[in-house]
């Protein structure tokens, strides 16, 4: 997932980086095909070049050597609301048919079954970044027909990168469609892992597994402690 997500980023783009796999994907892209990627973290680090994988988005390694450090009022007003962010990278406990994201509660808000962390910057990232990428593992619970709580609207979502394939938002209907598969995964495998009748594009992209360079960077350089990688 991290390798496929990193390939979505183009050199020179300004990307708002979230915690977890997006963090790994952005730092992989920076060390492979996109050395001029500008990483902006909501903590205020602009043009960060972390020499260790940040455990949190407020890690001190994001400050050392970065191009600019600003307060959070500047991050949200001067960068995000100003329209300077090209790509926003989000995760979520639930992603629905229309790419809406829930990171707030499972169950009713007043009496939740599971209380999740909440929006953080996700609501405004989803509203202001020009292109949103979502990274999430597929399961019927994580991909319901409708999110229990709409934290971040899905209308700017370009792609949802999962562990089985890639979904893209159909421009007309706004609905997510299956558009790419990893080797050895069938359309039915993906359809069985989402909570609505998922349609597939007639011609599907074949998603290449990580190259040996990507794999080595991910395992030995970026995440040797397996903070985010599972293997």
């Amino acid at each position, binding site marked *: 997932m991290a390798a496929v997500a990193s390939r979505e980023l183009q050199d020179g783009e300004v990307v708002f980086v979230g*915690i*977890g796999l997006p963090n790994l994907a952005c730092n992989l892209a920076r060390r492979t095909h996109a050395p001029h990627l500008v990483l902006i973290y*909501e*903590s*205020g*680090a602009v043009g960060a070049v972390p020499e260790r994988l*940040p*455990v*949190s*988005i*407020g*890690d*001190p390694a*994001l*400050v*050392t050597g970065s191009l600019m*450090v*600003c*307060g*959070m*009022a500047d991050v*949200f*007003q001067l960068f*995000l*609301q100003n329209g300077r962010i090209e790509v926003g990278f989000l995760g979520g406990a639930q992603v629905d048919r229309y790419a809406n994201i829930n990171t*707030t509660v499972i169950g009713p*808000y007043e*009496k*939740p079954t599971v*209380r*999740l*962390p*909440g*929006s*953080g*910057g*996700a*609501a*405004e990232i989803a*509203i*202001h970044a020009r292109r949103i990428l979502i990274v999430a593992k597929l399961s019927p619970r994580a991909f319901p027909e409708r999110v229990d*709580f*709409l*934290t*971040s*609207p899905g*209308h700017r979502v370009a792609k949802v990168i999962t562990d089985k394939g890639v979904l893209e938002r159909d421009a007309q209907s706004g609905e997510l469609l299956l558009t790419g598969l990893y080797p050895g995964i069938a359309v039915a495998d993906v359809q069985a892992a989402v909570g609505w009748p998922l349609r597939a594009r007639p011609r599907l992209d074949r998603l290449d597994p990580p190259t040996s360079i990507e794999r080595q960077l991910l395992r030995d350089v970026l995440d040797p402690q397996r*903070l985010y990688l599972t293997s």
Partner: protein
Amino acid sequence: MQEAIARHVRDGDVVVIEGFTHLISFAAGHEIIRQRRRDLTLCRLTPDLIYDQMIAAGCAKKLVFSWAGNPGVGSLHAFRRAVEDGTLELEEYSHFGMVARFSAGAARLPFWSLRDYAGTDLPRVNPRIKSVTCPYTGEALATVPALNPDVTIVHAQRADAQGNSQIWGLLGVQKEAAFASQRVIVVVEELVDEGVIRADPNRTVIPAAIVSAVVVEPWGAHPSYAQGYYDRDNDFYVAWEAISREGRSLQQYLEEFVFGVRDRADYMRKQPMLAGALKARAQFCAGVNYGF
């Protein structure tokens, strides 16, 4: 610290301990727990471990926040238990919303307008998120009310005796939170001469004019960090997952590391390995010419 908290933090207060991952005053939070303050409205973008501990200690009546997790690890369990049991009142925003609330408070305006929340469920569960029609363009903008805390506590790398405080590294929303507040406590790693401050005035974030008390408390932000002084104790953030998962082990932690120590120096003596493991390596900047 004891005196500053006793004098400036009262039962029922709206309290802010700010710092985004960086410079979170755990020392002040622990002293508030030791002095058994009650019915506080705790406000922060990210409640973090410090508010999880204060919630577990029974200090909080209400939480005003935008992201309640253990960064890079998972959940805040005391927070989750309190919400799932219905014992903690919540007022929830997004980060931009919280930043905007402090900005309005700092500018002494009644509200702040922002392009946000369209299409989200947040205004449905938080009626304080409203909207206004722009008198110039007719555009509908979201609004959030000013947040003016009774007391804001900020950890800084250094200050002079009057409270002119300098911060570098991640700045979070401390400046806005401090200017929005009725009272401000500054906790610092180092007390320096006024001349040190005057030699580099661009680095001053909080001026003495708004500071009520200055407390010198080295390592006061641990397990959070202070750029140039010590690293974040990521191992403790990971360990908190197991400590806080059960109410009983969390209470044992509070007994030992909060009630069981007098102050921060005592807390550090109890964990003699920390200072060596976390001390920052030197990486100085060149400085600039302020001459004219």
